[in-house]
């Protein structure tokens, strides 16, 4: 009996949370005009969310690209097809690894930071204080951060892919003597701007939306204690990871399955 009781309770709680988070999202969308009128706020947030994630994304991109290059050469050489290395590295990065890995890194670094910051503001009553001063915290605090995440992640994903392709070049061409012309020319002929690159960017825009929404909501909804904030940051990272991988599957099936 208790078992069914707890299942029911958990389902109702999850539904309630989903409802709250949807209302939260629609409130954010209503407030999005505000940060556009206050560029200073927005730029501060792009710095904290995007610029501070740059090195993490860049170095990860470089190493992922280099590993792709190495593994690619090892595998392709069994078919005598090393000249296809460029296509392999570029396709993997632009379609999948670029958007997904940069989103996961972003969720871990920027997402958890956002959750902790908002949660702490809630705990120290800064959000209530702002409400009392008749300043809507959704407009002043939440909306700029949402817009910043929405702008930053696709940029970070593009950086990841570009740096990764260079990494593949360094590993394959410089270190393992793949032909430099073949690397770039085969890549150019096979990677389509609209099908591959634009789709990859669309993916990372959708990821940005989801991650920033989750991160901000978990912070806003957190129990205002230190244990509550730590739970909230964990939830952000875990839920973001699930959502990214789920949506990656759905989007890949939609975008690349039918061509």
């Amino acid at each position: 009996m208790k078992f069914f009781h707890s299942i029911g309770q958990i389902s109702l709680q999850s539904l309630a949370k989903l409802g709250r988070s949807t209302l939260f999202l629609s409130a954010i969308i209503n407030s999005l005009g505000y940060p556009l009128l206050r560029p200073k706020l927005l730029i501060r947030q792009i710095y904290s969310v995007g610029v501070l994630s740059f090195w993490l994304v860049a170095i990860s991109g470089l190493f992922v690209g280099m590993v792709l290059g190495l593994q690619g050469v090892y595998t392709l050489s069994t078919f005598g097809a090393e000249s296809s290395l460029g296509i392999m590295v570029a396709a993997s990065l632009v379609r999948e690894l670029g958007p997904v890995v940069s989103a996961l890194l972003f969720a871990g670094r920027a997402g958890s930071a956002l959750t902790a910051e908002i949660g702490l503001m809630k705990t120290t009553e800064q959000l209530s204080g702002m409400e009392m001063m008749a300043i809507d915290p959704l407009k002043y605090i939440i909306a700029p951060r949402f817009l910043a995440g929405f702008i930053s992640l696709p940029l970070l994903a593009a950086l990841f892919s570009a740096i990764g392709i260079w990494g593949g070049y360094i590993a394959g061409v410089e270190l393992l003597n793949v032909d430099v012309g073949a690397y770039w020319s085969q890549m150019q002929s096979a990677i389509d701007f609209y099908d591959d690159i634009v789709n990859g960017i669309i993916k990372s825009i959708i990821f940005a939306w989801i991650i920033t929404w989750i991160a901000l909501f978990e912070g806003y909804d957190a129990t205002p204690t230190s244990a509550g904030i730590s739970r909230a940051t964990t939830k952000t990272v875990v839920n973001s990871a699930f959502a990214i991988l789920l949506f990656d599957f759905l989007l890949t099936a939609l975008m690349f399955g039918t061509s």
Partner: protein
Amino acid sequence: MISINKLSFARGDNKIFNNISLTIQPHKITAIMGPSGTGKTTLLKLISGQLKPDSGSIMINEQNVHQLSRKNLYALRQKMGMLFQSGALLTDMSVYDNIAFPIREHTALPESMIRTLVLMKLNAVGLRGAKDLMPSELSGGMARRVAMARALALDPEMIMYDEPFTGQDPISLGVLVKLIATLNQTLQLTSIIVSHDVQETAAIADYIYLLSAGKIAGQGTPEELYSSDSAWVQQFMQGKPDGPVPFHYPAQDYQNDLLAH
């Protein structure tokens, strides 16, 4: 003039307010006191519209707070100042910017004018020299005074203090008590103090409501309460360890408890 009529509010099973009614007279200091956990902070949040009551109404200047549109509620809040227990200063801004914040957001005054206003408010609380410090560099008492200056930034008509005296050293206490009374007088504010520090509050309050278990257990001027017939009121006002609120948590007979195995 604030009137609370037949207010009821419950959190889960806990009935925090059970059909209470009270009035706050304008330009006076009204104190709401009671044991810890009786929902005094909740009452402030209900008055400011952050929480909605289950039944009953709160009228401020003839307007029902909870029936106002968002825009009108925000307009009303600009006439209210609130001092949170922790000060609730924005941690990434300096003291100056914290106080300038509501002015910048709600008015289009030029920076030179804002500077004058900020310095005036800081001077009123005696912290004009601290204007460039960050909140993390302030002591608890100083943070509260800065928060007070910020609450006064838009020249409100009323101001609410949430536990202003808790955890302060004697000197800070003296400063705060003096400030609350002086500001109320000079600025003709309506002040509501929520506290359980009897001595300090009774020294400056014009009228006191005592809340307990969701109901009003006593009300009156400080003198009336000190000479009250109610044993509970006497125990609370004088801080007696035993009385209607017993010292011993209900337990079985002492001898039986010791000798039982």
